[in-house]
């Protein structure tokens, strides 16, 4: 009989975890959007990492201050000295783009990472313990949720004081409800599953249950939500900068750079599109950066979301 059983095994089975991982990776890279998204992000990583080489700062102690030759308020078009043109007051756009990349990464990743962390903890507590703890956390979350992020962010940044640091702090403070909700709902589903009840019945401590059983299962939702939120975070940060709540003039801040173009939308009558580079380039950089993250986030979601996974 045993040789019959032997013959029914098709191939030596690889460890299921590894199989799933390779399946995910294959799916991920088959998707053309992933490749595009990753390329875009890699490009920006390159810009950020090699900023000192690509755009040597005139003032090494404050690299984010953009160089400028002169104080002419009219922006200059792209030329040999300023490859992408200049802002009003002759700040070099290319420099601003390159150094602004570092800021963008800093803002996006810091905010999302901090939010993930806080959301994970609070969501786990709320979901696992339930009852009044859950109620309190969710109600407080509702309060934050009730006001559109941008508006509340504006109020907060105004109160704390402008600058990119403030923006980061404010976005961290405002962002936690989303992640908490996601984790909490995941946990609510898992909490009642049999394997958790079995662990409890065996006397495993609460902490261990959370850490070793619940967390690993919820991680995927977090990855999905996180990757999709980097783009949104950067858009809001850029909007705040655009409104003037970010860096001061002269600093490499994409949003602030866009805001300088408001007086130059229409050029002189002979050449009404004269300042196209000013209107187009900084904003395009933001759009491209966000697009890269959104593509990646979408691809990650397509691969890891269990409902979409094997479509």
């Amino acid at each position, binding site marked *: 009989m045993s040789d019959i059983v032997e013959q029914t095994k098709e191939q030596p089975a690889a460890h299921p975890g590894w199989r799933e991982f390779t399946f995910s990776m294959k799916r991920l890279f088959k998707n053309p959007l992933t490749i595009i998204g990753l390329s875009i992000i890699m490009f920006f990583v390159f810009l950020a990492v090699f900023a000192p080489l690509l755009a040597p700062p005139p003032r090494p102690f404050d690299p984010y201050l953009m160089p400028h030759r002169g104080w002419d308020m009219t922006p200059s078009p792209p030329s040999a000295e300023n490859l992408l043109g200049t802002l009003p007051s002759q700040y070099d756009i290319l420099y601003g783009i390159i150094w602004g990349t570092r800021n963008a990464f800093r803002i996006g990743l810091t905010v999302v990472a901090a939010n993930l962390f806080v959301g994970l903890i609070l969501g786990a507590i709320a979901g696992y313990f339930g009852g009044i703890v859950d109620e309190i956390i969710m109600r407080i979350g509702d309060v934050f949720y*009730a006001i559109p992020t*941008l508006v509340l962010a504006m*109020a907060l940044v105004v*109160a704390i004081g402008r600058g990119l640091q403030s923006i980061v702090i404010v976005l961290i403070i405002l962002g936690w409800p989303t992640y908490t909700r996601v984790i909490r709902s995941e946990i609510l589903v898992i909490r009642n599953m049999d394997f958790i009840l079995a662990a409890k019945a065996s006397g495993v401590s609460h902490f261990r249950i959370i850490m070793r059983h619940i967390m690993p299962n919820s991680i995927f939702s977090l990855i999905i939500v996180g990757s999709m939120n980097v783009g949104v975070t950067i858009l809001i940060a850029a909007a705040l900068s655009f409104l003037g709540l970010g860096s001061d003039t002269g600093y490499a801040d994409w949003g602030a750079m866009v805001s300088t173009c408001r007086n130059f939308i229409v050029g002189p009558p002979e050449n009404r599109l004269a300042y196209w580079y000013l*209107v187009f380039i900084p904003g395009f950089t933001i759009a491209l950066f966000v697009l890269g993250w959104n593509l990646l986030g979408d691809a990650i979601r397509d691969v890891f979301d269990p409902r979409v996974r094997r479509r």
Partner: protein
Amino acid sequence: MSLLNYIVRRLLFMVLVLFGVSILVFGVLMLIPPGMRVAAYVTNEKVPPSAIDAMIVQYGLRDPAPIQYFRWLGKIARGDLGYSTTAEGPVLKGFIQFFPTTLELVLYATPLIIFVGVWLGTVSAVHKDEPVDHFIRVVSIVGYSLPTFWLGLLLLMFFYGFLGIFPPGVLSESLRDVIYAPGWIRVTGILTIDSIINWRWDIFLDALYHLFLPTLNLVILDSALIMRLMRSSMLDALGQDYIRTALAKGASNHTIEHIHARRNAMLPVITISGVLFAGMLAGMVITETIFVRKGIGWWMARAALQLDVSAIMFNVLFLGAVFVGVNLIVDLIYATIDPRVRLS
């Protein structure tokens, strides 16, 4: 659980949340030093610096936060919402002045956004993996990634700068005086409506002319979200068992897509419409700033920059109330549409 019961409970909840919001925002604003907060009480230019300290004491701006909060609550209860420097008048007056402009844009944009989003999302789902699908998906993800301000500026540069059409602002300069002239009957404050009431079709058309670009801006950006949601929601619905039954019954593809699948797929979209609507009010900050439409978004932006405390407080609370209120309405609408929902 009766309907009335449910509504009452939700309203109470809404009040509670608003209290929470007010505490949150007030707490934050307390972080602003009293020297700047006193500006809210300076109703004219002629206050000498020495008097400012006296004013700070007079208005209790250094008292403990809870006391200031309850004082502020008391004033709200009496209807005194404070003075707004950016509006150059009481906050309420500013609100009446600015809100209709925002409302007008929202009213035109929202149905278009939903329509375009639902339509393209359905097309995308039905033709999954075909060129149309890929195209729509790309369009929606790009639309989703565009910064609000950038698209607006580009549109302005191209249409207004280059082609010379669709200028920013709400009305052309020449017609602006008509609105403020004594003969003008102001019913809603919404130009496209008031102009018809006043039987000034030239103003009506001019207002529409100025509405085009901001609406286009909003539609491009926000319908992307609806498109994506509708697509995944439709795909979900199309994978369900009841589609299999409909197929076995002899339903045509059209019936399956439009009646069986879409009705189910619309439910999540309806839920999100509430969020979308409220979110748009917030997004107005950018759009109104760029297109120079003086609505509450524009007001909020200026208030933030000039530390106009009363205006900030009011706007934040107002938007919060709208958000929670709209969510309530959306939930009610949803309950009437989805037969599975029991309001309990």
